[in-house]
Every structure is written in C-alpha cells, then in structure tokens.
C-alpha cells in the first residue's frame, strides 16, 4: 500500500517556444501511515509533482503507481485514484464556492456518490479533524476568517476519506499558531494510517516531521533520504533557495569551530550536547 513514482518526467508545452521541463527522472516511494515531504525552491517542480499523484497531470515519462494502480490516461481507476489521493492545492481557500460550509464540505462525498444519509456524518468527521468550529456549518464560506477558510478547504478534501493526503504548501500565509495546528492535524492523520505528502519550501517543518524527504532543484531530484541524511547532504551541498533551519546552521557553525556537537535541527539535541543533561 504505497504511492510510487518511477523515473517520472513532465514537460509543459512540448514542441513550442514556451517549452519548460518541469520534472525529470524523479523516483520515490512512500507508504500509508508515513509522512513524506517534497522540498525545493519556487519553480523547482513541486506543484507539478503533486498533481501527478492523483492523475490531474499524467506522466509524460515514467510511471506513477497508487496502491498498485498505474496512473494512466483513460484508465478506469483514475476516478478511484482521485478519491484515494486527496489533494489540497496551494491557497485552497480560493476554490470555495458553496452557499454554506456544510455544502462545501459535502461537495466531494456527493461527487463520489456517497448516499445522502451518510453525508452529515462525513461532514461532521471532516470538520472535527480539520479543527473547524461546529457553528461555522450554516455560515457562508466567504465570511469565514482566513485561517477558518483554509480549514474549511482542507475539511472539504478530508470528507472524501482519502488514504493519502497531498498538501501543496498548506502553511503559506498562515500565522505560527495556525501552522502548529495544521502540523499537529497532519501528525494525527498519519498516526491514523493516512499517508501524508507535504510540499513545502520550509525545511524546518519537513525535517521535524517527515519520515523521508525528497529535495528538488530545477525539476531534478537532488536527494531522497531520511531527514538526518538529507540535512547532512544539504549542509555539504547547499541548494540555492533552500535555507537550513537556524539551529542546523548554528550546529554546523559550531562544528566548524571544532566543537563536538552533532549536526542537528533540534534545539533539544544541540542543548544536550552543549550543556549536558539537565
């Protein structure tokens, strides 16, 4: 039960002067119940990659497999794949359209043909998961606050009960409190067995929560490893536009000065190494 990409490649507008190679030779795999992050600078192909995982874009080279089903044009499983892999776009609040938050969240399950009498349950569960207040249900999604809109949009994807959740820069434009709320939601979903794919340019979050990280640069794969190994790689070979977390930079600088500390992004770990157990 996993999502797998093999030598995935994608070119926009092939054969025209606007031809852009957005992805080239990308391979990775992640299971349900794990958190996989894709990190890279703007324009490195992260959003393009995210849209391949539920068949919104189809591979031009290589393949994508979801739970053993290949993502292919006209494949009968495409609709099934879309249901399995929930995709939260960047700035998802811009997709809101319904009269009430209830209808907004019910949109996806209704499209998947869930019987009307099961829909209230779905909506309630999705709202609870996303941390949206019950009193929002009857309000218009356009009158919610920014953070609430984001939550409503995420709930509207969670109501499909996906097996994998792909989020494209979900923390962009959120305050630090909402950011913490969101990451703890994702941690909870992972522990319930959902596969999480987080697209981000924030290495801090990627290192802190991921089981594995893929780093992209200009559409090519720089490294796909566990967080500690990715940190070591990026410290040795910096990628322009990807800033290492402050603690990681500090620990690297200390090591350069000859201090005996590990290369780490965790303050706790660095503190213990510097000042001992307390």
């Amino acid at each position: 039960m996993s999502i797998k990409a093999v030598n995935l490649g994608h070119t926009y507008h092939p054969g025209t002067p606007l031809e852009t190679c957005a992805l080239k030779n990308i391979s990775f795999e992640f299971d349900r119940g794990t958190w996989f992050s894709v990190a890279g600078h703007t324009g490195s192909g992260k959003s393009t990659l995210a849209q391949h995982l539920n068949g919104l874009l189809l591979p031009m080279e290589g393949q994508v497999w979801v739970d053993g089903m290949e993502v292919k044009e006209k494949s009968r499983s495409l609709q099934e794949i879309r249901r399995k892999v929930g995709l939260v776009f960047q700035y998802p609040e811009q997709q809101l359209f319904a009269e009430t938050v209830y209808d907004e969240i019910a949109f996806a399950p209704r499209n998947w043909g869930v019987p009307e009498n099961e829909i209230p349950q779905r909506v309630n569960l999705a709202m609870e998961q996303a941390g949206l207040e019950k009193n929002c249900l009857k309000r218009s999604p356009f009158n919610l606050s920014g953070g609430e809109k984001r939550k409503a949009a995420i709930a509207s994807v969670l109501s499909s009960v996906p097996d994998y959740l792909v989020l494209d820069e979900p923390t962009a434009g959120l305050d630090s409190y909402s950011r913490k709320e969101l990451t703890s939601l994702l941690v909870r979903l992972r522990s319930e067995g959902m596969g999480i794919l987080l697209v981000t340019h924030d290495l801090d979050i990627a290192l802190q929560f991921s089981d594995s990280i893929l780093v992209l640069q200009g559409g090519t794969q720089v490294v796909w490893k566990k967080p500690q190994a990715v940190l070591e790689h990026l410290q040795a070979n910096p990628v322009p536009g990807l800033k290492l977390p402050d603690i990681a930079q500090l620990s690297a600088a200390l090591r350069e000065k000859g201090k005996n500390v590990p290369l780490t992004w965790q303050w706790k770990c660095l503190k213990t190494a510097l000042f001992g157990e307390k």
Partner: protein
Amino acid sequence: MKFFNHLTFGQYVPSESLVHSLDPRCKIISVLVLLTGIFVVKHPAVFALWGVLLGCITAAARLPFRLVLRSAKPVLILVLFTASIHIFFTEGDPLLQVGFIRITRQGLVMAAYMGLRLLFLVLFASFLTLTTRPMELADGLERLFSPFVRFGFPAHELAMMMTIALRFIPTLLDETDRIMRAQLARGASFDRGGLWKRLKAFLPVLIPLFVIVFQRAEDLAVAMEARCYRGGAGRTRMYPLCWEKKDTAALGAVLTLVVLLVIGDRRLFF
C-alpha cells in the same frame, strides 16, 4: 490534462526576429493593409500567393508554422460554417441534387473563397498578437488614435482598458485552469451527463473565478490610485515608441506587395 492552452488564443510568443522588433504602429497598419487586400482579391493564383506570403512572414518572425496554424483553431468552426452556408445557399448550375439540397458550382467556388478569406484573415491578424506584446499593441493603438483626442475621443482610456484586459486574459485562464483542477481533485467532472448537468458542473468554477476577478480588479484599482494614476494627460512613457527606418521599409514593402497583388488580380480576373 490541460484545459486551456494559451497558444491557441494567439498569445504573444517571444522571439528575436525582425517582425517582433518592428514598431507596433507599423504592424497594425500593415495588418490592416493586408486584410483589405485579402478582401479585394478574387483570383485563385493570387490566393496561392497569399499562402506564400504567409509562409514568408512566419519565417521572418521565426515562429514554427504549426504554431501560427494553431492560432486559427478557435475560428475553424466559423470558417466551416461560412463555407457550408455558401455551398448550400448559392444559386447557379447544379452539380448535385439530393432531395431539396442542391450543390452548385458557383456555391462550391464561393465557399472556397469565403472559407479561405476568413482563414487568411485570422492567420494574418494573429501575427499581430503573436509578435507584439499586449502593452506595445495598446501603446501603438493609443498613438494611432491620438489625433482624435481633440475631438473628445478617449484614446488613452481605451488603450489602458485594452492593456488591462489583455494583460489579464492569460492570468484568468491560468486561474480557471487551477480552479478546475482543484474541483476535479474533489471529484467534480466536467465531461459527463447532459447539457444541463455540464452547465451546472461549471458553477463551482465560475463562482470562485468571479470572486478572484473582483478581488484582482479592486487590488489593481487601489494600486493605480496609490501611484497617483489620473489618466493620460501629461503622462510620459518608460519605453517611448520610436519609428525607425526598418518600419518605413517594412510598411513600404507590405504596401507595394498588396498593391501589386491587387493589380495583378484585376488583370487576371478581367
């Protein structure tokens, strides 16, 4: 899966060519001259010469020929429609009669003429947008219309509106594309069911699009006011248009060619 392709809308395609570097005023007038020529000409041999001219301009603009042809795709239906009207409704010597449908020789000839004319019209006109930035185009129009300003013609305002509209078409297409994808990801489908169902399926796209459009319009208005925009009077330009020798030469060449073709056409025809 891509729902809109910018290139089909005759959008600007950057390239370092002679045609790209001409003054927009030169290109606007040349295209007008060419379009007039297309409507005057009647002889098949001259139509073939239009085809050659099209090829030459494409080469001079350093554009792939396929790309130019593709810009005619949206109007292909119109071309076919016009041609079929002429096929079926022109009186003359019957070639074929099935029931009340009658196809005449004159009808076929007219259909071919009108179809080709429309096609050439669109193809030549598309060079204007393919090789000229929207901003330059609006600039050129404003300058061409500026003599009428003293009679109260709002040249600057029209040019500004056109610039803004042109500037936002690709952006809005992108937004539409993005919203359609977001709704597809939530299980929407735009290609199933009857007409009514399909129309209804577009509501989840149209509503967010309107929200975005009004938001953008408001942002833009505020940004313009913040920079003290107050219309055309006394406004200078960052890139003033400048008519060079090559513009005169190009316009002269186009004029000569069209005049020659029209004269040749008269000679051949009568």
